[in-house]
């Protein structure tokens, strides 16, 4: 008879099989057998978070910056419920997470036992799939399948709930890697030549084309970004990106129009509105992108490439739908494109030259400009200086949620995929700090910065303690405007400046807070001291909380006001009353 293994041992054997090196977690009664087993598996390092939500976002940051699935381990009841925000966040932003949760022993399930909750019930709508394992013989197969589901097709979170008695029970360990039943969302990656030819035909006919690319390019892997760059250079078409897609295409390239959507650039949004061909690669026509659906890009033919069939046609009807992984689509397309069109770039130049003139005209609006000041630090200026002073390094940026997030997206330029981690779909305040922890774990020695808001960062501040424990020199760069700025901005624009509960009185002294955690605190109050202090932050090899005091009343522009189409943007404060005036705005 073969050797018998406990459920807890089996958990680690499958993790080892998947070459897991880090798990983010928090112990408790219902997972103690698994924690007990940890000592026997030296290749797996456990990172002790300070809250299960923190463990979850750290696993997300780890996954998004490394391309590997993030693994988290939590106990039953409150451990599992605390993980729900992170799981939902990962679900919305397609991040592969395997969450293992402890559960009360099988004989107590359903009795309202201590720390019992219906974990699979609660997490059913926020995972791709979940399992309650009631027989130890199923355990290896289920965890193995969990990794497969999390990482194939459109990635996402999964959860395996393991009752405590199952962790103790023993069985033989077999890992069959058959299981090639159709996994939903996993599509055959064969793009047909016919489909690709249709794309090429539309591209040739178009005189106002635009690429609209999203997180799918990043999720498809670094090769997809390379192919995207090649395709853009073959065509000379303009390209814009969603929030999640930033970094797939170089942010400082002249063909790049900047981010689109609610706080996207004037040129990107107008290109989307006026184009005659929209080529959506790995984006999902989210409502922050489309604005008013009925008036979304009225004159264009639309191509949509997505790995998830349910993303196609959900919000916007398209003319050509291609269900595919981005990398394999682009591989086929680029090859065919080069075969069929020698020197397309030059021969097609005149065809799209008026279009580029239109775009240049929109660019002249310089929609990201703002009025700088000598007295007070403008948040946009702070992000620009941070970019200028760090861009020679391979930097990883995470953010919280709010104005600072949008300013980071607008003013920090990304040149590589997997360098930008932000909570887009769910918009989770408190994401950025723990995500930075995970990013730094996956990328030792790299510069990891959380561009934060003072309100958001207080939601998961406890994870500074994690950063200190594991010597993770993350930098928390707080754009401290003392307000929930994004909320305040909406209240100013839509609720007659009734700033109901959006001011945080009694903020902590962030410098002292940093010291209390055992890390470095830095504060900047004036524009002229900013550079010096940013350099100081970058140069210290310890976790830093940087309290950057910025103009409390600054608003984030440009913006598409709610329910408006893309061609009706507000460019700046003057715009609420009258026509755009470009005067008084300076580009730093």
């Amino acid at each position: 008879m073969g050797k018998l293994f406990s459920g807890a041992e089996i958990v680690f054997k499958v993790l080892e099989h998947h070459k897991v090196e880090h798990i983010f977690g928090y112990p408790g009664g219902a997972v103690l057998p698994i924690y007990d087993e940890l000592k026997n598996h030296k290749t797996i390092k456990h990172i002790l978070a300070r809250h299960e939500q923190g463990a979850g976002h750290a696993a997300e940051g780890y996954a998004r910056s490394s391309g590997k699935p993030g693994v988290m381990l939590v106990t039953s009841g409150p451990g599992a419920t605390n993980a729900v925000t992170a799981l939902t966040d990962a679900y919305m932003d397609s991040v592969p997470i395997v969450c293992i949760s402890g559960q009360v022993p099988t004989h107590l399930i359903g009795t309202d036992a201590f720390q019992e909750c219906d974990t699979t019930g609660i997490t059913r709508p926020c995972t791709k799939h979940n399992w309650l394992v009631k027989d130890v013989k199923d355990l290896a197969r289920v965890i193995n399948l969990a990794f497969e589901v999390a990482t194939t097709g459109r990635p996402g979170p999964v959860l395996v709930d393991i009752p405590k008695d199952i962790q103790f029970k023993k069985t033989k360990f077999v890992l069959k890697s058959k299981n090639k039943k159709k996994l939903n969302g996993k599509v055959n990656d064969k793009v047909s030549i016919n489909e690709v030819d249709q794309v090429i035909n539309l591209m040739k006919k178009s005189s106002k084309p635009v690429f609209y690319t999203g997180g799918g390019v990043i999720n498809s892997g670094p090769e997809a970004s390379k192919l995207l760059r090649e395709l853009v250079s073959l065509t000379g078409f303009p390209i814009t990106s969603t929030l999640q897609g930033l970094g797939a295409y170089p942010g400082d390239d002249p063909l790049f129009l900047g981010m689109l959507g609610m706080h996207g650039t004037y040129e990107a949004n107008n290109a989307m509105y006026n184009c005659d061909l929209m080529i959506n690669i790995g984006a999902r026509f989210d409502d922050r992108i489309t604005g008013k659906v009925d008036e979304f890009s009225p004159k264009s033919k639309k191509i949509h490439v997505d790995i998830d069939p349910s993303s196609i046609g959900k919000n916007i009807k398209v003319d050509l739908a291609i269900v595919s992984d981005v990398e394999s689509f682009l591989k086929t397309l680029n090859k065919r494109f080069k075969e069929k069109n020698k020197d397309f770039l030059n021969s097609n130049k005149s065809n799209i030259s008026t279009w580029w003139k239109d775009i240049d005209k929109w660019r002249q609006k310089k929609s990201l400009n703002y009025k700088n000041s000598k007295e007070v630090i403008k948040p946009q200026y702070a992000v620009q200086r941070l970019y200028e002073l760090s861009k020679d390094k391979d930097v990883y940026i995470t953010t919280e949620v709010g104005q600072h997030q949008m300013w980071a997206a607008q003013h920090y330029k990304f040149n590589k995929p997997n360098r930008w981690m932000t909570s887009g779909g769910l918009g989770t305040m408190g994401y950025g700090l723990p995500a930075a922890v995970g990013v730094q774990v996956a990328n030792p020695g790299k510069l990891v910065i959380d561009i934060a808001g003072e309100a958001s960062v207080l939601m998961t501040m406890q994870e500074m303690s994690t950063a200190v424990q594991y010597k993770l020199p993350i930098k928390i760069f707080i754009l401290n405007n003392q307000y929930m700025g994004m909320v305040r901005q909406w209240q100013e624009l839509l609720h007659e400046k009734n700033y109901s509960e959006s001011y945080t009185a009694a903020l902590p002294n962030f410098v002292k807070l940093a010291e209390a955690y055992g890390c470095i605190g830095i504060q900047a109050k004036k524009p002229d001291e900013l550079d010096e202090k940013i350099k100081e932050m970058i140069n210290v090899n310890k976790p830093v909380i940087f309290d950057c005091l910025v103009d409390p009343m600054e608003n984030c522009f440009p913006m598409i006001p709610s329910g408006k189409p893309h061609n009706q943007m507000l460019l700046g404060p003057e715009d609420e009353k009258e026509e755009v005036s470009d005067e008084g705005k300076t580009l730093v």
Partner: protein
Amino acid sequence: MGKSKSAYSEPGKLGKLENHIIVVWVDNEAGVLARVAGLFSGRGYNIESLAVAEVDKKKHISRITIVTSGTPQVIEQIKLQLRKLIPVHKVADFKSNDQKILFKELALIKIVSSKKNREKARKVCKKYNSIILDKSKNSFVIQVTALRRDIDKLIETLGPLGLVSASRTGAVAMTRGSEIFK
């Protein structure tokens, strides 16, 4: 600048609602019905009726028949979302007026009334493949199979004739001829 007081867009034009029958083959495992039902409630789709039972004992496959309504875009989403669920094997979909498909619901109806009214009630039921399942001196239980709207009508007619209780299933569906659902 017209002011909408929301960070969200206003609803666009609504398409026309269609009635559809959706048939789903799933692994008969714990929680599968909750997954399917949760998908509908979570995304705001409508379930008019639902019928489910295991149809393949060996492979543990259940067949779920769901009557729903929605715009063509919503119906398409329902199918695509269902196909993403891991225990779902296949999904078929028909308009409820599709002539190539048979739809049936079953109802058990209890009548307690005078002899005269009971006679009348039996007669009304005749059209609907009725079978008397139980009889006593002042009551009977009758089984009928028909379309939903016919059963609706029947129940209305039987009201004054002594209907005291009705129990109904959701619709089940089958293709006509030698074809099967794909």
